[in-house]
């Protein structure tokens, strides 16, 4: 029988298992209904899970709010487009690509990996500068990074198509592909969070000064988590492009930045389970409200929300959640098996977010 501490460490790995099961149930339930629109919603939701979990790897562990992740997402999405589009299409829409890229015609999977790696590399370079800052200055610097990526991608005519959309991406991302990547992101996030570096980083989140006094190199751990986070965000960008089939720089600016952060905060920024919960709850809520807006008939009476009500209600719900549960729905706790009773429960090792 291992001692209590080892047991606890081992049980921490039950979190990704539980989260994967929840997502699997979600996809299976959607697949059973056979509804095309629902399947599409499920795929989009799971791409968002990949994105928000990727975001959490950095934000959740370091406590630094990043506005820049939509930038890594854009980098991943366009990279995958450059690698997978047909050479004829690229010659037509993106004439200024270098020759080796213009003739490239990769399979989608290695392209997704390459997109993640490129985003991770950009995260390494940008993070090397930005992460010398902390607190709100770091957040503003990440925002400046996002604005730089956005400006470049929406003006670099021959390489990104600027504001005219890039079309014709293979739409291979269905619920199952997205599920596979979401689970991969969750497993990686959990491995990182429970690694020596992840624990050290969380120590700096709780108290920068005390952590530094204990010999933790904050900069190095933040940079490492940003690189891993950049990888999955880049992959999420590639998946996003291949689920819609169309790319436009506007998709990777403030809208997605705030939705992703809102999902993270509503779910609970302090835990991986919070990230996943936030995405599922808000995505389902948005879907339900969109359907209500289109109108449902209950008995003889047709009921429809006035148009525009969906966005307003989403905003109101977000505010209410934050007022009633400022630490998010999960309050920073993880879903995991408990040592003695071995049943699903909230872990009470509450971590505060700051």
């Amino acid at each position: 029988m291992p001692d209590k501490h080892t047991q606890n460490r081992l049980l921490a790995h039950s979190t990704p298992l539980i989260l994967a099961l929840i997502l699997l149930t979600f996809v299976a339930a959607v697949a059973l209904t056979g509804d095309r629109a629902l399947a599409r919603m499920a795929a989009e939701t799971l791409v968002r899970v990949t994105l928000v979990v990727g975001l959490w790897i950095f934000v959740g562990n370091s406590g630094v709010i990043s506005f820049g992740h939509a930038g890594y997402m854009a980098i991943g999405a366009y990279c995958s487009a450059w690698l997978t589009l047909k050479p004829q299409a690229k010659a037509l829409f993106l004439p200024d690509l270098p020759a080796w890229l213009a003739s490239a015609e990769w399979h989608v999977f290695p392209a997704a990996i390459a997109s993640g790696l490129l985003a991770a590399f950009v995260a390494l370079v940008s993070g090397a500068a930005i992460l010398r800052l902390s607190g709100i200055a770091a957040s503003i610097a990440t925002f400046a990074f996002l604005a730089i990526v956005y400006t470049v991608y929406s003006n670099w005519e021959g390489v990104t198509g600027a504001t005219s959309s890039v079309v014709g991406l293979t739409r291979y991302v269905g619920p199952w592909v997205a599920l596979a990547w979401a689970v991969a992101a969750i497993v990686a996030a959990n491995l990182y969070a429970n690694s020596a570096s992840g624990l050290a980083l969380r120590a700096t989140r709780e108290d920068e000064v005390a952590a530094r006094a204990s010999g933790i190199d904050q900069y190095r751990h933040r940079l490492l988590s940003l690189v891993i986070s950049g990888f999955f965000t880049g992959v999420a960008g590639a998946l996003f492009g291949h689920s819609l089939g169309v790319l436009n720089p506007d998709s990777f600016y403030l809208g997605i930045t705030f939705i992703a952060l809102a999902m993270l905060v509503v779910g609970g920024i302090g835990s991986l389970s919070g990230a996943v919960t936030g995405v599922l709850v808000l995505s389902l809520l948005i879907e339900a409200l969109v359907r209500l807006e289109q109108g449902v008939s209950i008995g003889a009476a047709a009921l429809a929300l006035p148009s525009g009500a969906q966005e307003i209600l989403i905003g109101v719900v977000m505010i209410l959640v934050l007022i009633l549960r400022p630490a998010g729905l999960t309050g920073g706790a993880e879903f995991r098996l408990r040592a003695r009773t071995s049943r699903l429960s909230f872990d009470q090792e509450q971590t505060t977010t700051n």
Partner: protein
Amino acid sequence: MNTLAQLFFDAASLGGIYAMAALGIALIFGVMNLVNFAHGQYIAFCVFALIVPSTDAVAVVFLGRAPAFLLIPLLLAVGAAAAVASEYAVFRHMRKATPVAMMISSFALGFVIQNALLATYGGRPKAISLWPELNTPVTVIGASVPLLQVIVILTTLIVVAGLALLLKKTRIGLEMRAAAENFTMARLLGVRANVVITGAFALSGALAAAVALIMATQTGVADVRMGGQIMLVAFIATVIGGLGSLPGAVAAGFLIGAASVLLQAYLPLDARPFRDAFLYTLVIVSLLVRPQGLFVPSSAKPRV
């Protein structure tokens, strides 16, 4: 000389708008550590308060029809009321929440305001003509500038001077400065938290209304998205200036205005579309050089 003067007026008037918006954000940040992302929507709200609610393409001027001496105080009051109401409805219940949670809820509030405006006024930008005669050019020290630019510069100076007087000479101003310095300590010494916070929101909303008036006159358009860009620049100005420092926010606002006008004028033609990328690179560089802000109050040093 001629072009230099022209550049100066462009920079000063753009910087003035940024400075006023940055003040609106810095005031609230100072007293309650809230990065208020709804500020841009206060601006949009004030612009739309000028016209009759309808989804038609042609805007019928409503408040905007009042003569200037009535309209200006009225719109400032509308802005202040909107900001105070939002504090009442949302932020009052979040005093104990983390800054991140407050920031996200301010974003959610902005989202609600924006969509409420969309639902009442429709999504298309509308033409409004508010004081069109102000866009006629006048000649000042050899440069031909729209009268409005001169007015913007003067307004900014008056607003900044007025605010400085308010903060230095009145009781509420003193309380606000104390609260910005150290909120807990100020409360212990008898500063009334709710009064100070409500005051900060009212001032911030009035500043948003001033920006709204200027933008509506300058562009002649009412668009739901018009506050967003200004707010982001203002937010950056607040941080570069040194969070919690009001003079810093004003100076940084002018600095960003000047930098963006100069980049626009002197970048090579090919690089000009990428102007913002250069501007934001400068922002990152400035943060790396002075992480606490360019114009730092002594209280900004992190304490252990």
